[in-house]
């Protein structure tokens, strides 16, 4: 699979941050489907234990939306996100992205999918400790032909003055913002966030959520965010609830909340 050809990729000449166009400013569910799961199951083995993480999951991801996947620990949401991001392969079922069947991708195609289409933000930030903030962002932008400028992205997340600091010299919130910058710098279509506020205090967590909202609103990135923290569901355009590897409910939020108004 090559780099997806899409009128919404953005201006490759400027690599600027606000050239993505979208049919709806709110990134609403009225946009087309960019990814879908059809009857996806996943089993994996850890040591001597076999876990059935997903059981016949079916849903769609719409262009430009914030999709929140809510569920307690062990509900399968992280597994779902990993499979959506091409980090893992399902045991059965089909996943598509822009009409390409991801489940049929070979290793090389999966790598390209992760490289060009997906940006990840992890709960534990997962910055490389041997690299500075800017270098962590460069690590991602080095891979694509039309990345965003590292310093510009760091400026957008409020860390331009900490560009030369190593992760050990940054607070948790700052590390998470660097991780967001890294995820965004590749200009991916899909930003996947795994409990982005899980390791942060309330204020910092709120700042991170606001940043994600801005990215969705201004840069038209589709965001899939998983969390066990129920109040966070309010910021999503849609909320998928999961339990024991299954989707139990899908809700639409007509008016997604501003993260600054969410309390937890």
């Amino acid at each position, binding site marked *: 699979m090559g780099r997806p050809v899409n009128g919404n990729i953005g201006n490759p000449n400027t690599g600027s941050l606000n050239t993505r166009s979208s049919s709806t400013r709110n990134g609403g569910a009225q946009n087309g489907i960019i990814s879908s799961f059809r009857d996806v199951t996943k089993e994996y083995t850890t040591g001597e234990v076999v876990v059935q993480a997903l059981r016949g999951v079916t849903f769609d991801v719409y262009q430009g939306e914030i999709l929140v996947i809510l569920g307690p620990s062990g509900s399968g949401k992280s597994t779902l996100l990993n499979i959506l991001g091409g980090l893992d392969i399902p045991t059965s079922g089909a996943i598509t992205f822009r009409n390409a069947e991801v489940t049929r991708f070979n290793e090389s195609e999966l790598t390209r999918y992760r490289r060009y289409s997906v940006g990840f933000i992890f709960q534990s930030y997962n910055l490389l400790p041997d*690299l500075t903030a800017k270098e962590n962002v460069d690590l991602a932008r080095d891979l694509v032909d039309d990345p965003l400028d590292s310093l510009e992205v760091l400026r957008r997340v409020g860390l331009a003055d900490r560009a030369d600091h190593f992760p050990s010299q940054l607070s948790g919130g700052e590390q998470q913002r660097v991780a967001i910058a890294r995820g965004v710098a590749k200009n991916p279509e899909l930003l996947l966030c795994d409990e982005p506020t899980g390791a942060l205090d309330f204020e910092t967590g709120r700042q991170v959520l606001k940043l994600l909202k801005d990215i969705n609103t201004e840069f038209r990135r589709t965001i899939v965010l998983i969390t066990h923290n129920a109040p966070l569901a309010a910021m999503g355009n849609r909320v998928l609830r999961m339990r024991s590897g299954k989707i139990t409910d899908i809700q639409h939020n007509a008016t997604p909340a501003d993260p600054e108004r969410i309390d937890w």
Partner: protein
Amino acid sequence: MLSRGTLTRKLIRQIGRTRGQFASLVAVVAIGIAVYVLMTASYGELHDSLDRYYREYRFGDLLVQVRRAPASVVDVIRGIDGVAAAEGRLMFDARMEVPKSPGNDGKHTSIKGRIVGVPDVGTVSVNDVKVLSGRRPLKGTAEALVDPQFTTAHGLVAGDSLTVYVSGKAAGLKVSGIATSPEFTYATSNPSELYPDPSSFGVLFMSQYDAASLYGYQGEINQVLVKYGSSADTSATRVAIERALDKYGRIASLERKDQFSHVVISQKIESIRTISTTLPAIFLLVAAAIMYISVSRMVREQRLQIGIMKAIGYSGQQILAHYTGFAVAGGALGAAIGIGLGGLAVPAYMGVFAQYFNIPLGSGRVGLQEISASLAASVAASIIAGWLAARRVLALNPAQSMRPAAPPGAVKAELEWLPFIWNRLTFSWKMAMRNLARHKGRAALTVMVAMFAVALLVMAMFMRDAVDYLFRETFAGRQHYHLAVNMSRPCNRRDLFFLKGIPGVDGIEAFCDYAVRIRNGTKQDDISIKGMPRDSRMWTLVDLEDRPVSVPETGMLLDETTARKVGLQPGDMAWLKMINGTRNEQPVLVRGLVRQLVGGGAFASAEQVNQLAGESNTFNGAWLTTGDPDRVRDVLRESPVVISISSPAERLAEFEKMTGMVVFMVGLITLFGVAMGYSIIYTITSISIEERKREISFMKALGLTSWQAASIVFNENTALSAAGIALGLPLGNVMSRAFMAAKAGDMWTFPLVIYPRTYMFAAFGGYVFVTLAQWAGRRRIRQLDPIAELKTQQG
């Protein structure tokens, strides 16, 4: 377009963080490559220099010794098909004296000289002489060029005088300069001497005319030198030459491949070539093992980072290349350093060579070939080791790798099956044993490297032990006389009474020593046969079980090396012909084999040897015991019939001086062995500390001291090192045996002698490298902050 600048920066910082391990790796590669470069460049220089020397000075292909022939016979030889050039000359051995002078203490006054006549007119077409300083001797001036080692040993300069004794008469010669020749690259008076002793042997190049005058050979020669044509049928040409010279009393013919100097230097050059491949290969293997262990560890430790990089979009191959890069960086840097060190050492090594070999040598250059081969070998080894260690990243599923690794499975240590031992172990030993059982591959690699390191130490000392034993046994263990006297002619009882009558002589045993050709079917060899008293107390012969034996009344005892060469066993009949004589071959029964460490040859009763020579009751040498060797020597010097005087004590003293080179090599190899052992133990220690830092920190938090907490790591090292030492000692014995087997057939038989102290030294060396590595690791343990480590998440 993909840029790997960021990953490169990560790699550099990774190297910085693990600089101790990286430095160990680099050191081992550097040593291996330095040895390769040194030996290969030296081999190249020696080989090319020798080749050039032989070519420029027209080293002959064949030398034929005759009794006496007219000089005109050379024209006949030149006319034989296949002969490109021929020269005739004179060569004699004579007793020499070097008078006392400011540069010479006059102590060495009984010296053997080899007088070589050099044609007076035109260019010498075979075996020319290279004048190093001064000038060629002029005809009729009684001058001589002298070999460089001899001039140095006796402090001679141009213009100094020498005395040679010809038929008992003294003749004065003046030194006209210093020279050498391809024939005398390794100048010993006979093949049984282990090393050149310029204090007692020298080569003089005289005008052919003057040599002829001295010896009464005007218009005659006693040697013919030949160069074959490029398309000559050498066997047929040689036969034709020998046939043409038979009537002049042909004594011997010697092809270049059998010429002593050529054989010695060729073997030496060949052994350098062998070392240039075997030793570096061992070091590169060890380096590869260290790389493998380090990179494997890195990949395991950074599985989360690998998952992140895959999540970001790096391919497995890119990540594999990144981790392999650690190994490649070490290999390339080690190679660069090794090339530099090896190149620096070449001139010094050439200098050492020049002390023993008369070859015009350059300082030696490291060529592009050596550099390319070094880089290629070390980078290839690095890529292979790094790839093997890191290839698991290809299989790592990104999601799985970002999950914490499953806790290590329960593994029982082998010792747990022996409860009477296991129950007596402390907890730290139990932890160490279980961890070893969990990482069997790594443990096996560590033991293997430690084993090689210790074996290297054994081999290093074995070389010294063998040479030490060879000399002590030969000169002190088996030769029980103070002086050995050689005569210029066969002597009779009257001469024996004269020797007995010298004041100071306590005991005397006469012997006769002749050069013979021994033949068994088509196999033959030129050896010496010594006729000695059956009840000799001054020369001990031992059989193959090291039991003293006496020479038989009839028949002979044969040295095992000679016997092997010609395929003879006790009970066989050998055919012996005197080289300097006209008698035909005679059969002599081989009654037994003896072990002669130096020289080889045959031993029989004086009567048997006299019979072979067609003599009766004669001798040409004697061993003397005396309480005053100097006084006896003074008297012997005056005798016209004495050609040389030697003493085992002097030879042993010379050996002590000569062992400087052996000690240097032993020291160097010892250093290599310790460096190798240190590198592997340090790498394992560093890795173990990193893997167990939470456990160690926990134990420190519990209240144990750093040393006690570190015991879980150090006990592993102790167990692995003990296994390495235990296996390395016998491996060292095996490697020494292999070395000895490779040397079999050389001039000298290296005994497999390894003194007990050598094993103790090697074991101590093992203890040293383990202790040093653990000391370096202990520092790291002291630095561990329990609070920080216990709060840090895994991965």
